């Protein structure tokens, strides 16, 4: 066995055990309290989950895209919020690795082990339309002065370091890295979202934050490219989250349908139930294959934009539908706030919007299909 396979086996053994003992038993509590109860967040940090895909030269474990996605999949089986919190950090770390100056990488990547990094594009005036934003950075000598307001940031409030999209000219988008310890940085309002309630989603306000040139990601004007790159990363991992949600749903419905009887027969023997269970299983497996293919393409340096968009677009609608079918199978229990099905539907529904809407995914897929035939 090679070193890579052994490492992956050890990691996945640990993650399964961690999820079984520390995450899954608290899934409902996390949803109800909107927080990572039972010191879960400290345990995540203590065991260095934040360093999972951080390159070894910066003190990380250096796992590849496929392994990272498999870990996110396993965690989501226990609790989707925690998986999304990690996804938000990983895609941000990845952009600093990819586009950061050496100075920026040396300053921030070793800190990524303990401090969450977030990625923020959305503003009250624009989300999926980045040109609609108002935040801006102006050059002043050898510094940049940043002003603006970013909302609905995944891990906003929890994260201490932020990659922020700003305008450096009226039609020029660029990314900078700011830190909550900088003068002029303030936390704003926290959102009260319907699903993935464990994930803090919040606002940051930037008042004349002064940063060095080294805090620019890539070059001025690379905002769209970096945003697209982060989205591709995030969409693969969201495919993994959605697979985890559907695996959770399958565990619940197969257990229920095997034990619940109607006319002295377990309902799993009835064709109406079988059809729903089979559809959930097919959707789960398809989403898994889509995200694993996209992750494999990423690891091999190929363009994986379309596959990542498919994993998210197909997976999110399928997981909502699978949740609805699961609710129907469990009947009254499915409709109860005391059972997890209803929050799995709310969690999956978030991913039809976050990281680019499913409508945007379809635009990307359609254009890629046309482009490949042009």
């Amino acid at each position, binding site marked *: *066995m090679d070193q890579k396979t052994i*490492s992956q086996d050890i*990691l996945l*053994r640990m993650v399964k*055990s961690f999820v079984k003992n520390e995450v899954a038993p608290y899934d409902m509590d996390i949803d109800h309290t909107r927080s990572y109860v039972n010191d879960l967040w400290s345990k995540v940090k203590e065991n*260095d989950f934040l360093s999972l895909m951080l390159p070894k030269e910066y003190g990380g*474990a250096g796992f590849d895209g496929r392994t990272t996605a498999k870990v996110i999949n396993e965690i989501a089986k226990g609790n989707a919020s925690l998986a999304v919190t990690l996804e938000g950090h990983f895609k941000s770390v990845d952009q600093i690795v990819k586009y950061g100056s050496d100075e920026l990488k040396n300053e921030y990547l070793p800190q990524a*082990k303990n401090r969450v990094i977030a990625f923020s594009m959305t503003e009250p005036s624009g989300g999926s339309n980045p040109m609609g934003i108002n935040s801006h950075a102006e050059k002043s000598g050898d510094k940049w002065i940043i002003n603006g307001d970013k909302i609905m940031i995944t891990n906003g409030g929890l994260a201490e370091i932020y990659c922020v999209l700003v305008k450096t000219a009226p039609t020029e988008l660029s990314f900078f890295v700011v830190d909550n310890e900088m003068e002029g940085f303030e936390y704003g309002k926290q959102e009260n979202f319907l699903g993935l309630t464990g994930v803090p989603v919040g606002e940051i306000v930037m008042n004349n934050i002064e940063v060095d040139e080294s805090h620019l990601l890539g070059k001025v004007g690379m905002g769209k490219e970096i945003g697209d790159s982060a989205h591709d990363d995030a969409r693969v991992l969201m495919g993994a989250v959605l697979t985890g949600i559907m695996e959770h749903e399958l565990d619940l419905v197969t257990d229920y349908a095997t034990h619940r009887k109607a006319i002295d027969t377990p309902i799993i023997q009835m064709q109406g139930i079988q059809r729903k269970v089979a559809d959930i299983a097919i959707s789960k497996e398809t989403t898994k294959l889509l995200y694993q293919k996209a992750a494999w393409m990423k690891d091999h340096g190929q363009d994986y934009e379309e596959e990542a968009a498919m994993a998210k677009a197909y997976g999110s609608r399928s997981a909502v539908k699978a949740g609805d079918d699961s609710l129907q199978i469990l009947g009254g229990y499915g409709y109860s706030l005391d059972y997890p099905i209803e929050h799995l539907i709310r969690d999956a529904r978030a991913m039809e919007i976050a990281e680019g809407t499913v409508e945007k995914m379809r635009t990307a897929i359609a254009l890629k299909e046309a482009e490949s035939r042009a």
Partner: protein
Amino acid sequence: MKIVVGIKQVPETTNVKINEKTKNIDRRGISGVINQYDRHALEAAFDIKAKTGAEVIVMTMGPDDFVVSLQEALALGADSAILLSDRAFAGADTLATGYVLSEAIKKIGDVDLVLLGQQSVDADTGQMGPIVSEFLDMSQVTYASKLDVDGDTLRIKRYLETVEQDVIAKLPVLVTVTDQANEPKYVNVVEIAKSFEKSVITWHASDLNLDDDRVGQAGSPSVVRSISSPEAVAKDNHKLADNPQDAADELVRILKDKNILVEDK
């Protein structure tokens, strides 16, 4: 101080299948994990290492893919790892396995403490500790729930069914460890990559001073003739009162009558 911890890789699932031909566990297609009790034995070794700076050597006997469990033990903090692997070892029962383990421990030499889990969760015999200690002619203490090294002695707490025992053992000693001994830590994500700075050493039959008749199937006097799961049969059904308070009172009374529940004096 030198500590050897014997571990076993067991199926991850509790839903194990039995190979009809060999009457052994069918390990094909099932991913393995370190036996739960062995994780406690490892943790006990790491606690002693933290206090005394002891060297921790981890060892297992099995096929090549057991290397994953050894590498995991290295990532958890073991100093070195030995895989005892050879086609000649196949089909070994507890006696033949214990013989090979004890010969490997002899080869390491100057071992002060041998730690094993109280039993494996797949075969469940609990025989390995006593067998290895006999082959090594080393004192043994089974079912240790607390271990403290004090110079050249080891203080051990045993919680048995009706008594609590404090045992003081002079090193060298072999100890089997229960799941009450400690709370095993998870392997740290970053330590997995770092653990490859240490590598797993493989010892084959030819590396050890073995009597051929005592290893593998030839050295295994026990034969599993049949294996079956007991059928669950409901008996002595008794319906408790409908009212929860009355039901609770009745249940307490029944448990006391059967001496299952004993009042504190």
